[in-house]
């Protein structure tokens, strides 16, 4: 049966070539498309996490629902020690966020002023890499602020601005700051609202020594984040709560899930077309071969063997296409993961969607490639089901007399 299937494949070149090409193109496109889709999602997420969010954060319970200074972590020493004793963390740091009004001579804007340890943040976030002008590690009454915020306040490097807010004990904080550094992460909202200052000076202004709005941590490997977070979670005092990036970035994760869903729906429509084209070609071919099947059945070849023959034909054609498409698709996905495509100006255009880089990488995941291939393989095999049913609906006599 196997050699007969080979002969048929070689004999019916039109059908074989069409099936081969369609399967090849579909599988190749599917692997590359999904790799690009997952790659861009991964990149957006990674960028967002690396820029500022980290892979998990620790808060005083109720801070995220109620907010305000009443729900600060009052003593960061214990949770920081727990993090120091936990393996698998790249870096961690406490942050204290406060909100107030920043004013230049003529413009005012609400801002989020955060006291950070610049040295720790360097290992934890992309804040240093985002530096565009001035210095990163500012001291004293010096601010490291978003470029968009500086633009809104019409400020330049070296200019002075005033800040009015409240300290942790709700007393007034009013201070004049110098713009010592500017950054641009590409996340528009973040860049137009955020300013950072050295934690030591921040603590003298806001009376916030050893306090934090939250402690941010970054796992060495994002894949192991859950395990590391669980370890930390078990040791944390009862009043503290750990949030993983999936919760912190909930809206972004949901956006990606919806985007993936639409991506798969688009590909699904494409596959439906391909499926019917392969099936129709197969059907036309089989319809033309009805006499041949009639003769085979007349000389004693069973219906099951005829079905097996047709199945073998599509199986061999599919496998033949897979032999070329699978390694090529996998290689393309892998290649662009290492050498991402660069589209100049893309980050500027899509910054509000969290795109902070002009690079469009793929995500090469062997398991995803395997599942995608399996799906297409099953679809190809499915395309022969109706033609087999069609052949079996005739008697051998009807088939031999078929015109």
């Amino acid at each position, binding site marked *: 049966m196997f050699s007969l299937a080979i002969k048929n494949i070689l004999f019916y070149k039109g059908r074989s070539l069409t099936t081969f090409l369609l399967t090849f193109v579909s599988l190749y496109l599917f692997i590359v498309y999904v790799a690009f889709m997952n790659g861009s999602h991964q990149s957006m997420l990674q960028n967002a996490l690396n820029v500022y969010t980290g892979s998990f954060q620790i808060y005083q319970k109720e801070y995220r629902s109620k907010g305000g200074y*009443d729900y600060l972590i009052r003593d960061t020493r214990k949770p920081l020690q727990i993090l120091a004793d936990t393996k698998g963390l790249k870096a961690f740091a406490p942050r204290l966020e406060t909100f107030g009004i920043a004013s230049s001579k003529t413009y005012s804007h609400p801002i989020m002023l955060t006291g950070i340890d610049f040295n720790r943040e360097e290992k934890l976030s992309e804040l240093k890499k985002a530096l565009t002008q001035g210095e990163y590690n500012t001291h004293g009454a010096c601010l490291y602020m978003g470029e968009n915020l500086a633009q809104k306040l019409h400020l330049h490097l070296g200019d002075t601005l005033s800040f*009015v807010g409240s300290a942790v*004990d*709700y007393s*007034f904080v*009013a*201070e004049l700051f110098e713009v010592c550094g500017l950054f641009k992460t590409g996340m528009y909202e973040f860049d137009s609202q955020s300013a950072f200052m050295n934690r030591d000076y921040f603590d003298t202004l806001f009376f916030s020594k050893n306090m934090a709005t939250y402690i941010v941590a970054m796992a060495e490997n994002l894949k192991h984040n859950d395990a590391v977070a669980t370890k930390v979670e078990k040791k944390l005092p009862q009043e503290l709560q750990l949030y993983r990036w999936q919760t912190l970035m909930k809206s972004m994760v949901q956006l990606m899930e919806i985007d993936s869903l639409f991506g798969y729906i688009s590909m699904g429509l494409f596959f439906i077309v391909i499926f019917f084209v392969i099936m129709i070609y197969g059907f036309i071919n089989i319809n033309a071969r009805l006499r041949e099947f009639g003769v085979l059945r007349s000389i004693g070849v069973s219906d099951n063997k005829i079905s097996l023959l047709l199945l073998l034909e599509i199986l061999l054609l599919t496998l033949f296409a897979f032999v070329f498409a699978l390694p090529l698709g996998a290689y393309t996905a892998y290649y662009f993961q290492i050498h991402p495509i660069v589209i100049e100006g893309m980050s500027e255009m899509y910054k509000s969607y969290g795109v902070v880089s002009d690079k469009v990488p793929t995500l090469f995941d062997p398991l995803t490639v395997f599942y995608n291939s399996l799906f297409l393989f099953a679809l190809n095999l499915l395309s022969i089901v109706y033609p087999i049913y069609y052949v079996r609906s005739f008697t051998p006599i009807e088939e031999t007399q078929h015109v």
Partner: protein
Amino acid sequence: MKVLLLFIFLSTAIFASEAEDIIKKVDQNMRGKTLYLKIAMSIQTDYYERNMVLESYSEGSKKNFVKILSPSKDYGITFLSLHGQMWQYIPKIERIIKIPPSMMLQKWMGSDITNDDLVKQSSIVKDYTAKMLEKKGTLATILLTPKADAAVVWGKIITTVDTKTYTSQEEIYFDDDGKKVRSFVYKDVKKYGNYYLPTLWIIQPFDAPKHKTTLQIKEAKYDAPINPAYFSKSALKRFSN
């Protein structure tokens, strides 16, 4: 029947009128024609205790000027309330900031009093309708409900007034849903000329039992002439030092 209805109507009107009179006298005691106060304020919460000293100059209910005297980091911060508008001056940054009406009920510097309490912009006489709830000896318990056109947020206030001195002993503030929000307890009533003034005020919010703000009146001068310059925007900077 008619006589009975007339009796009920008259007694209600008399009680309402009496309640309004009491409230007017309490308000008069709290304001005078002009009033200068030096106040020591202590704020206690779960996490900190803060002490401040401030002085307040007021003329009626429309004009009020407040200056912080200590701690030194806040020295010279001034507040001016003038005909329903409020400004603040911060000497360190040399800026005058207008406080919008929407922020009048925000807590003032982490205390349990609001911006409105500080400058006494809303008036229990003009903005509320008074109704006598109970009268026992010299103590009158009065219900204050906001008038329809009054820009206040309290659903109601119940105040207990000592009619001997016409000073409030306790005020309980309720929100629109009738839930207790905070209480003012007034103690140590002293006489200043023709006026009586409680010199210890204790404010406690009901949702944070460990929070407490205490105001101790250190000095009070009634009806003394106040330089009109205090009640102009330029005063914010001028009298800051």
